[in-house]
């Protein structure tokens, strides 16, 4: 289990905001935690997977997509803020994220 520091949290936020600004051709300063990924940014579900790949490489995570899929079914992500929180959980718990359900 990785310990999430303030620095990690800020780094994740920065990566997520920059990713959506770039991919959705949006002004980064207009993206907030409440921004809806599909309705406001015209984003898509694949972006979530691409971000996970980015974080997997960056933090050398032991996480399988099917594990995230099972978790995401019960915890759907709609906003940037929700997505950041889920990424933090993934970084913190990796494949053990499903144990949070128990």
């Amino acid at each position, binding site marked *: 289990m990785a310990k999430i520091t303030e620095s990690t949290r800020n780094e994740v936020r920065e990566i997520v905001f920059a990713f959506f600004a770039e*991919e959705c*051709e949006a002004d980064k300063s207009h993206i907030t935690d409440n921004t809806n990924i599909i309705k406001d940014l015209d984003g*898509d579900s694949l972006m979530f997977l691409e971000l996970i790949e980015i974080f997997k490489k960056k933090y050398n995570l032991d996480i399988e997509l099917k594990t995230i899929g099972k978790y995401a079914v019960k915890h759907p992500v709609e906003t940037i803020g929700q997505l950041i929180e889920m990424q933090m959980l993934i970084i913190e718990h990796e494949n053990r994220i499903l144990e949070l359900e128990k």
Partner: protein
Amino acid sequence: MSDKVVISGMGIVSSLGYDLETFWKNLVEGKSGVKKISLFDASSCATRIAAEVPQEFEEYSRCLVRKRAAGQMTRVTRMCLVAAKQAVTLSGLDFEKEDKSRCAVIMGVVNTGNSSVEKDTSPQNTVFKSMTNSMPAWISLEYQLLGPNFAVNTACASSAYAIAIGMQMIRDGNADIVIAGGADSIINPEEINGFNALYALSVANDPPEAASRPFTATRDGFVIGEGAGVVILESEEHAIKRNAQIHCELAGYGLSSEGYNIMAPMKDGEGMAATIEKALKNAGVSKSEIGYINAHGTSTELNDRYETMAIKRVFGEGAYRIPISSSKSMIGHTIGAAGAIEGIITLLSLKNNTLTPTINYTDPDPDLDLDYTPNVSRHKEIGVAISNSFGFGGHNATLVFRKYPGI
């Protein structure tokens, strides 16, 4: 109530331009879009020329296709979406005012363009780029349309089939609006070497612009082109109701299969003739009404010979009075997009009372003695015209266009 189907919009991406005005001007001036291949190093190929869409198209398309979506499309899929957006814009359609469940998309798709020349494909985008339904899907997504949405593949007749099926869908009352057409590009080493192995392509590489020379004695195969053509089909009643500008009537179509050979057309153009006959009957027009034929005219030995024979078989002595031309002499063979692009050229010929030429017609084949509109465009008022498309596998299509009163 009229069961007429009309065309209220069209869009083009081609080697001679990616807007209608430039495209038409270049055609009328008899320009060639054929050049040395720039998309890849073709120095080891027997054929080293093609009619490529200008590289500036990429910059133009960035204004019309969102970056993220563009990354999930091949270059040719972007051409298709751009042509569709041009067509919708010209039509003046506002889909928010339409019953979207009655708006369909049908595209002729032979190749997705996901070849070795396609750049910047990420693992996540590989599937999207290779989906043969991606072109109609992206168009439907763009406007959030809810009607039928699919691709048809009948080789070089694909987009003509798409238009014919769309027309029938409207005639049958199953749609108000159909976005129909197609896009294609096979300018890649795999396809060029494959077609070279079949002796189907011209190897007259120098000068490139003289290589496509349909109906001449020295023709030696077709020249590959690429591009997209899309039309907006709608019922006349629907178009009038929304006060749309009607560019032409799509009067009918003929579709048939030759059941003969995977590559060669049926001997003496029998299958081609049967298709033209079917189209005229379907459109309810007499042979004497036909004022122009936009030929399939590939610049191959067999097609041009048999298409000429087919026209004579259908029209008899009347064949000699009908001007014919091959757009492929200028824009090459755009394969799955050919039916739609050449259908649009036929429409513009009717609308503008101008017939585009068959360029490079400098050495007539003595056996092919019809009027091929040699080398220069011609002013002629015509009321009805046909466009032929014939594909490998014996897929034949003829579309019939009629001038719309008041245009």
